[in-house]
């Protein structure tokens, strides 16, 4: 049985349905990331798990017990907030121990626990400071300390890194991952940053308009997106989505100069071949279109394309061409010699290509 079960959860505010029939299971020690654009319902879902908002229908269970009627404090859940939500009138030590105090733990015991957690997080020297005197990273640690000290069954994180600068964000990301590995805690983590989702999660749920678009491992989400929204949202730069026409076993798209680019497959998925003569959407990630210097492989097709813009990014070069009337990002090796406004030979990796229905956006398998 799963550790955390979100079972057919719906939530509406008046006529607005924020969550629609959400079902997600998380195993003990799992790290679930809820990711999606703002307004997708991810924070609402987190709040219903925390008990800060009531769900309209459905059930949430921890270890098989329904928790819907329990007060937030009685759910044995800890939460780290986006703004850290440190009590401004209390010092760091009091902030960490407040939850224990509310549970009636004697002072000596509390002090011992606080000391232990402070040691783990290396914030012992900050215990007497007020939150206003701390840096962003330090506040983040204190917020985590406040969650850790209660030794809860489940940790919730609500976009905890979005208030940090870029470098600190990467450091804290690693730290959270290390904490997860060390303590083996079960975590539900909300973010709008797909890189955070990929790097942290053991499972990712992509949400949009209150609906789970896809639930799976990071690799599944990345390589096998179930619709155009997930394909576009996850990965940076995003997956290229190119309008193309099915013609037998071939898929054709137009280049910038009007000449067709033909991708011949050994076998197309049945749903794609069924659309003979009609349009499909071809999904191909930038790294699946590379320069000829790469190791081609049998399943590749080489074609000359005109390069519009070249964006060196250090380890790679992103080059942009136009296919099917859309800008297409390709990821080339850093020693690629080409230049903008010239033609270049590009290799398309057919094994990495996926197809979508251009109308519904659903995956064609």
């Amino acid at each position, binding site marked *: 049985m799963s550790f955390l079960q979100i079972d057919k959860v719906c939530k509406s505010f008046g006529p607005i349905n924020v969550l629609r029939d959400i079902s997600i299971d998380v195993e003990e020690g799992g790290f679930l990331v809820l990711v999606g654009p703002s307004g997708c319902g991810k924070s609402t879902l987190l709040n219903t798990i925390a008990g800060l908002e009531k769900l309209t229908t459905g059930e949430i269970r921890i270890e098989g017990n329904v928790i819907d009627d329990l*007060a937030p404090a*009685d759910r044995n859940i800890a939460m780290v907030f986006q703004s850290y939500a440190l009590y401004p009138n209390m010092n760091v030590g009091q902030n960490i121990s407040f939850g224990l105090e509310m549970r009636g733990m004697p002072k000596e015991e509390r002090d011992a626990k606080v000391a232990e957690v402070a040691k783990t997080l290396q914030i012992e020297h900050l215990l007497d400071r007020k939150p206003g005197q701390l840096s962003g990273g330090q506040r983040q640690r204190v917020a985590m300390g406040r969650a850790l000290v209660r030794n809860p069954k489940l940790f919730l994180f609500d976009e905890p890194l979005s208030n940090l600068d870029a470098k600190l964000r990467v450091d804290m990301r690693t730290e959270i991952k290390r904490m997860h590995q060390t303590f083996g805690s079960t975590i539900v983590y909300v973010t709008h940053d797909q890189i955070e989702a990929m790097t942290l999660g053991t499972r990712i749920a992509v949400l949009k308009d209150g609906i789970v678009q896809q639930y799976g491992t990071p690799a599944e989400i990345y390589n096998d997106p179930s619709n155009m929204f997930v394909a576009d949202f996850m990965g940076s730069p995003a997956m290229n989505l190119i309008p193309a026409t099915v013609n037998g076993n071939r898929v054709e798209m137009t280049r910038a100069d009007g000449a067709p680019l033909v991708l011949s497959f050994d076998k197309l998925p049945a749903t794609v071949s069924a659309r003979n003569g009609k349009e499909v959407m071809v999904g191909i990630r930038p790294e699946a279109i590379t320069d000829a210097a790469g190791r081609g492989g049998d399943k590749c097709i080489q074609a000359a394309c005109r390069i519009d813009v070249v964006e060196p990014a250090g380890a790679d070069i992103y080059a942009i061409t136009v296919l099917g009337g859309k800008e297409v990002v390709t990821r080339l090796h850093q020693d690629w010699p080409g230049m903008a406004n010239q033609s270049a030979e590009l290799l398309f990796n057919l094994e990495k290509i996926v197809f979508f229905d251009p109308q519904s956006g659903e995956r064609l398998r």
Partner: protein
Amino acid sequence: MQHSLPGKAEATLREILPRLVLSPSLFLILLFVYGFILYTGYLSLTDSRMLPSYDLQGLENYARLWGQRNWITALQNLAIFGILYILICSLLGLVLAIFLDQKIRGEGILRPIYLYPMALSFIVTGTAWKWFLDPGLGLENTMHLWGWESFSFDWIKDRNMAIYTVVIAAVWQSSGFVMAMFLAGLRGIDSEILKAAQMDGAGRWSLYTRIMIPQLRPVFLSAFVVLAHLAIKAYDLVIALTNGGPGRATELPATFMYSYTFTRNQMGVGASSAVIMLAMIASIIVPYLYAELRERR
């Protein structure tokens, strides 16, 4: 303790507790404000005189109210007083705020001096100005003693001019406050906009007339609402300054209501004048509050 309650009941208690806490205040407001408004509204339709009576007589009190010369005087006075009070306070407040905004040395001393009258009771203000404007004791006398024999300033004794002395005293009391509102508004304008205007070649005059003053529109509105409702409610100041006189020359709706209700034993007419006052204020305040509350959604 908490845990001994069944989950559902506990959850219900948790849910209603905040409303329970709010309810005494809501009850007081509903009874003492809205209940009383209804009661006074009802009285205005009865033949109440010295004591409340519950015999309805339709709109007779309103008809009698509008037939009273004193009530018409009170409304005319309110119009004169209200318009001048609002205009002068706003203008003076704006000018002083702009002047004070010119990196003035000693702003820290001047600002509190302009504002302190707001801390005084209207009774104190009235007492001070009554004396100051008294021809035999105050300004006129002083000017005579200083050798300006022909100086004459006896408005407070003049039936036609007395209402303007109320304006003078009221402006003295409130204009500093309006100044503070405008100053806060000026200081709140994004400095980048001002820099951009300067880059565009705006001089000091056009900076104020074209860029800053138009941005103070919400402050004008707030000032208008505050001053208008103060004007309609004005009571203490008139009592202390002129006591409605000379004669009934400085009668205002507030003093009219009080004297008709409590000294002339015409409670029904008094109640109907109070209803008219409420209607005047509501017509200004309700749209304002509605807009304000809607914006913050």
